[in-house]
C-alpha cells in the first residue's frame, strides 16, 4: 500500500508541475531574440569584409549562429572583449588569418592620378567616395571607415590608406608618444630655434 501511495504521490506531483510548466511555456514565451542587433551594435561597422562575411550585419548573424567572435581586425581586442561579455563565450585572441589590428586609417585619393573610372565608388560599402564617370573622385574623410576595399579595384593604384592624424582635442594622453628632444642648452633659450635631435622617448608617465 505504502509503495503504491509513494508512486502515486510522486507521479501526482510530477503531473502537477508538468501542467504548470506546460502552461508557462506557452503563456510566458519570450519573443524573438534581439541578439543579432546587440552584436551588430558592438561591431565597428567598417564593413570591410575581413571576417569573411559581406559586411558587419552578416557577421553579426553568423556570430549569433555560433561563429567565432575573433574575426574582426578593425574592432580588435576591445570588440572581442565586448562580444565575449555579451555572448558569454571565451575571449580568444584575434584570429590572425583575418588580419591584424592596425591603426585607424582613412582612404585618400591622389587626385592627379585618378582617371575617374568609378570602380572605387562601386567598391565603397558606405558610399563615402564622391565623383562621377571620368571625373576626379574624392573621399569624404569623415565618412570613410578605413575598410580599404576601394584600394584593390583601383586600376591605377591612386588610393592610399593614410593613418588618421590626431588633433589635440582628441589626443589620448600618450605622453610616451611625445619624442624627447635633446637640445643644446645654450641654443634652447635664445630666440633662434634650435634644431631638435630626436632621441629615444624616455618620458615618465
Amino acid at each position: 500500500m505504502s509503495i503504491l501511495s509513494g508512486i502515486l504521490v510522486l507521479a501526482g506531483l510530477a503531473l502537477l508541475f508538468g501542467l504548470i510548466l506546460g502552461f508557462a511555456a506557452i503563456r510566458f514565451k519570450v519573443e524573438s531574440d534581439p541578439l543579432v542587433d546587440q552584436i551588430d551594435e558592438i561591431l565597428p561597422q567598417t564593413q570591410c569584409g575581413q571576417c569573411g562575411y559581406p559586411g558587419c550585419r552578416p557577421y553579426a548573424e553568423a556570430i549569433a549562429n555560433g561563429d567565432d567572435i575573433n574575426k574582426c581586425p578593425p574592432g580588435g581586442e576591445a570588440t572581442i572583449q565586448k562580444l565575449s561579455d555579451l555572448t558569454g563565450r571565451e575571449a580568444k585572441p584575434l584570429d590572425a588569418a583575418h588580419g591584424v589590428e592596425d591603426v585607424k586609417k582613412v582612404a585618400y585619393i591622389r587626385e592627379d592620378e585618378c582617371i575617374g573610372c568609378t570602380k572605387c565608388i562601386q567598391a565603397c560599402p558606405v558610399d563615402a567616395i564622391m565623383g562621377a564617370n571620368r571625373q576626379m573622385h574624392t573621399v569624404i574623410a569623415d565618412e570613410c571607415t578605413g575598410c580599404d576595399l576601394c584600394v584593390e579595384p583601383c586600376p591605377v593604384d591612386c588610393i592610399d590608406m593614410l593613418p588618421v592624424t590626431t588633433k589635440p582635442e582628441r589626443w589620448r594622453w600618450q605622453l610616451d608618444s611625445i619624442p624627447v628632444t635633446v637640445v643644446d642648452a645654450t641654443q634652447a633659450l635664445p630666440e633662434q630655434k634650435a634644431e631638435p635631435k630626436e632621441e629615444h622617448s624616455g618620458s615618465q608617465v
Partner: protein
Amino acid sequence: MSNVNEYKTLTANGLWENNPALVQLLGLCPLLAVTGTVTNGLGLGIATLLVLMGSNITVSLVRDWVPNEIRIPVFVIVIATFVTLIELLMNAFTYGLYTALGIFIPLIVTNCAIIGRAEAYASKNPWHKAGFDGFVMGLGFALVLVLLGGLREIIGQGTLFDGADLLLGPWAASLRMELIQFDYPLLVAILPPGAFIGLGLIIAVKNGIDLQRKRRAAKQPIAKAQRARVTSQ
C-alpha cells in the same frame, strides 16, 4: 574515423581541457568536504562517476521523448534516482565508506557537473557517446578528488590509502602506507581550508602547464582567410 576523433576530444575534455573540478569548478561542495583521504576521494569519485554515466545514458536514451520545457525536471528525476540507488547500494555493500562519506552522497544530486553534462551533452548526443562522456567527465572529477585527497592525506597525516578497507574490502587494509611520521602534522590540510588551498594550487599548476604548452606550441603558419567583398566589385 571521425568517431575516433570525437572520442579523443571527449576524453581530452573530460580529463583536462574542461575538467569538471578544475575548469568548470562544479560540484565543489562534496569535492572540498570529503577529500581528506584518498579513500574518501576515491569513494565519492566512483559514486559520482557511476551517477554521471547512468544519468548521461538515460538522459540520452529518453531525449527524444522529453519536451524542452520539462527537460530540467526530468534530468533532476533521473539524477536523483541514480543517486538514491547508489546511496542504497553503498549503504548495503560498503557500509564503512557510507558512514564516512555520510551526507555527501545525497549532495551528488546537486552536483552541477552532472546536470551540466546532461544539459550540455547527453541531451544532444546518442547514448554511447553520452555514456562515454559521462565516464570521462566522471573520471576527470574522480581523479581530481583522488589527487586532492592524496595531497591532503600526505600533508595532513602522513599516510596514503588510510581506510582503504572501508571501500575495497579487508584485503585493502594492507594498502595503507605510512609515508611520513609527523610529530605535528599540518592539520590545516585535513581541515576544510586545506581543501580550498589545495584545490587552488592544483588549478594553478594546471593553468601553469597549459600556459607552458601554449608557449611551446610551434607557431603555425597563418592561413589567410578569404575576405568577403561587400560589394559587387
